[in-house]
């Protein structure tokens, strides 16, 4: 159990607390409360980190007020940045490498005129001018997905079960299950073998 009763993390270098909206399973591992330094989520149970999931300290939960994030059992976040205004779900046994960006929102309107109005209003850090009404499209990583380093996953993407994304790819469309994709933009490279279903395994 890495979370202490006063919501500090055991042996943490960062003198901060894990926000109340974060539910961490007693058997999950969180390296540092710094991962939640940018968390502005306000919903109850906004973040769920399930059993045996492990989140290392260079991971960052950059969450807006309405954000909901769930991290499945045995999933590993080894330095991902989650930019979330609506919903990001990460399935069981998902492996996420360093410098990965998973975003469900661009945080700013794509139209330059609207962006200009927002920028001229702000005189301080960017997140003060984030408009919660901006469109966001949920991102889902299904079970057993593996993301290589420096990968970007753009808003609205669903990556199917068992798929692999090569290093430095940018995923801007859905990925079907058991597919290896790579490149910028990411394209299918080949199919991956599906594991045998439970009833097909010899006793």
């Amino acid at each position, binding site marked *: 159990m890495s979370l202490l009763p006063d919501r500090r993390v055991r042996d943490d270098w960062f003198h901060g607390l894990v926000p109340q909206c974060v539910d961490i399973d007693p058997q999950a591992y969180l390296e540092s409360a710094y991962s939640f330094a940018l968390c502005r989520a306000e919903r109850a149970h906004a973040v769920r980190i399930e059993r045996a999931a492990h989140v290392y300290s260079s991971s960052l939960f950059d969450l807006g007020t309405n954000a909901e994030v769930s991290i499945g059992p045995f999933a590993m976040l080894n330095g991902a*940045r989650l930019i979330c205004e609506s919903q990001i779900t990460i399935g069981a046994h998902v492996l996420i490498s360093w*410098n990965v*960006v998973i*975003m469900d929102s*661009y945080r*700013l309107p*794509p*139209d*330059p005129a609207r*962006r*200009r109005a927002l*920028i*001229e209003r702000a*005189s*301080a*850090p*960017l997140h003060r001018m984030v408009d919660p009404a901006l469109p966001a499209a949920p991102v889902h990583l299904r079970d057993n997905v593996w993301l290589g380093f*420096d990968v*970007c996953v*753009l808003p609205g993407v669903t990556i199917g079960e068992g798929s692999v994304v090569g290093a*430095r*790819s*940018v995923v*801007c469309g859905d990925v079907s299950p058991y597919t290896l994709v790579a*490149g*910028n*933009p990411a394209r299918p490279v080949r199919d991956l073998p599906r594991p045998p279903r439970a009833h097909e395994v010899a006793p």
Partner: protein
Amino acid sequence: MADTEQAIPKNVHVGAGSVLTGAQLFRRFFSERDPAVTVGAHCHLEDVQLALGRRGHVTVGDHVFAAGLMILSELEIRIGQRVIFSFHVVIADSDFHPLDPAQRMLDAIAISPLHAGVARPERPAIGSAPVCIEDDVWIGPNATILKGVTIGAGAFIEPGSLVTRDVPPRARVLGNPAQVIGEV
């Protein structure tokens, strides 16, 4: 303005209400031009690196926001008004070494520690071309902008793009190399 106690070089000019931070802000700053860096008003440049060569020159407009931006300039980089850089963006206006293999060997010798304290041979000619980012551009995380590129006003650079060619105004680009995928 710098968050550590490093001195701000005399040829760096920062406008009213602007904030520059970064532990490595001037670690590789060698520009001899004046002005070498001009930053406009109300900019917020966090954790930025200004790696300028001897003839490097950077101008930044007003209301520019950046985090973790790396600016590598040997010639000229111009950034307009209200440009937003997501984290880990790199802008370079040079190749930094010659592309020709024989010339590159000479360059490796010229930059080696062998010449410490004695006259260093001139480095061979290196390809550089100015970079211009016009007003109201949005640049996504992990994007890279290479030499000679002009990004038109209002363009939208998707995350992770590698921009090697000019981007028309208000275009939406994605990929390595970045291709136009639509309009904003």
